[in-house]
């Protein structure tokens, strides 16, 4: 296979960016999973241990991190739905609209969460 010489600019378009954001959000969620399982594990250990961990959530920085996590999660869900629409429905030239709607839903859910925790 020849070394790709210089096709760097082929990727600069909205659908590629949607792919990249979907992939990055997926990697972030995978990295978060061990934390998620650890917290669930605390519940099995003892109620006190779980409550002690939950008290961390009073910290504004943790709440901000939670908000970012929620947005990442919704980005990944809506990005996945977008792919299902592309691949399992008859083709429509509405790609940019779907990307915008995915981003809009993600931000809206994040904002709702943010207003609820602060």
């Amino acid at each position, binding site marked *: 296979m020849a070394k790709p010489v210089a*096709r760097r600019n082929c990727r600069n378009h909205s659908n590629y960016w949607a792919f990249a954001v979907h992939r990055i959000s997926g990697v972030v969620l995978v990295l978060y999973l061990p934390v998620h399982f650890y917290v669930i594990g605390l519940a099995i250990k003892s109620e006190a241990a779980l409550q002690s961990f939950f008290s961390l959530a009073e910290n504004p920085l943790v709440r901000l991190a939670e908000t970012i996590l929620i947005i990442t999660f919704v980005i990944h869900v809506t990005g996945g739905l977008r792919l299902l629409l592309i*691949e399992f429905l008859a*083709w429509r030239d509405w790609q940019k609209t779907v990307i915008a709607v995915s981003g809009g839903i993600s931000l809206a859910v994040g904002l709702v969460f943010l207003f609820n925790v602060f």
Partner: protein
Amino acid sequence: MSVVHPVATVANGGAPGSTGGDGTNHKLDVSIWRGGKNGRFVSYGITLRESQTVLDVVTYIQRHVDSTLSYRFSCRVGMCGSCAMTVNGVSRWTCRTHVSEVVKDGRLEIAPLSGLEVVKDLSVDMTGFFEKWTRAKGAFVPGPGPSRDFAVVSPDSPQRRKVDAAIECIGCGVCYAACDVVSWNDDYLGPAALNRAWTLYNDVRDAGNDKRLAAVAGNVGCLSCHSQQSCVKWCPKHLNPTASIAGLKRATVKAALAGRL
């Protein structure tokens, strides 16, 4: 590594008609890939002419500056699909790409297509590209027995419309070179071969769909496509290989559910 060609920098300095659209001389700094896969970019300074295409620039350099420059072209009018190259980082058909559309700060970087073995300079070996058309069962398979009459296919039928939307591929390799999945997986059939398979899948006269679906399913076929759509973005014929591949994905799922795959 980049070097300035010693002859090219003074070439075409006062050639007649060598003016830009506003009547003034515009110098163009053209970096062209020279050598094989371990080659390098070489700079050529030429004068930009009005309505010049990227292929015109390459031809000018080959004919007037350095006759050892290798590249491929044939029809020059966007029909044959042989002149595709990487221009300023994007795969393009060079015969229909005007310099004015792609030039950036007076610079053009022209490289061979990605994803294919470089033969020399701007020429790539297209063998792998077309072998994948064969592997995708991109040839028409006639039904059993001799046909007694012409097949009548209504232009308005849904299947014929699907074929129409994808049939105008000229095999230039732009989509193949622009695709990330091609660069990640050497065996991936690529957008053009899968698009071809989709046109035959919808050909009501064809009898080879079971083998074709088996060939295009799986890790090297349509199921590896991430719908990044660089093929759609850069296809010079404005085709939509991602839609064709999505059609194949649905067809393979249906076939698998029906126990035919």
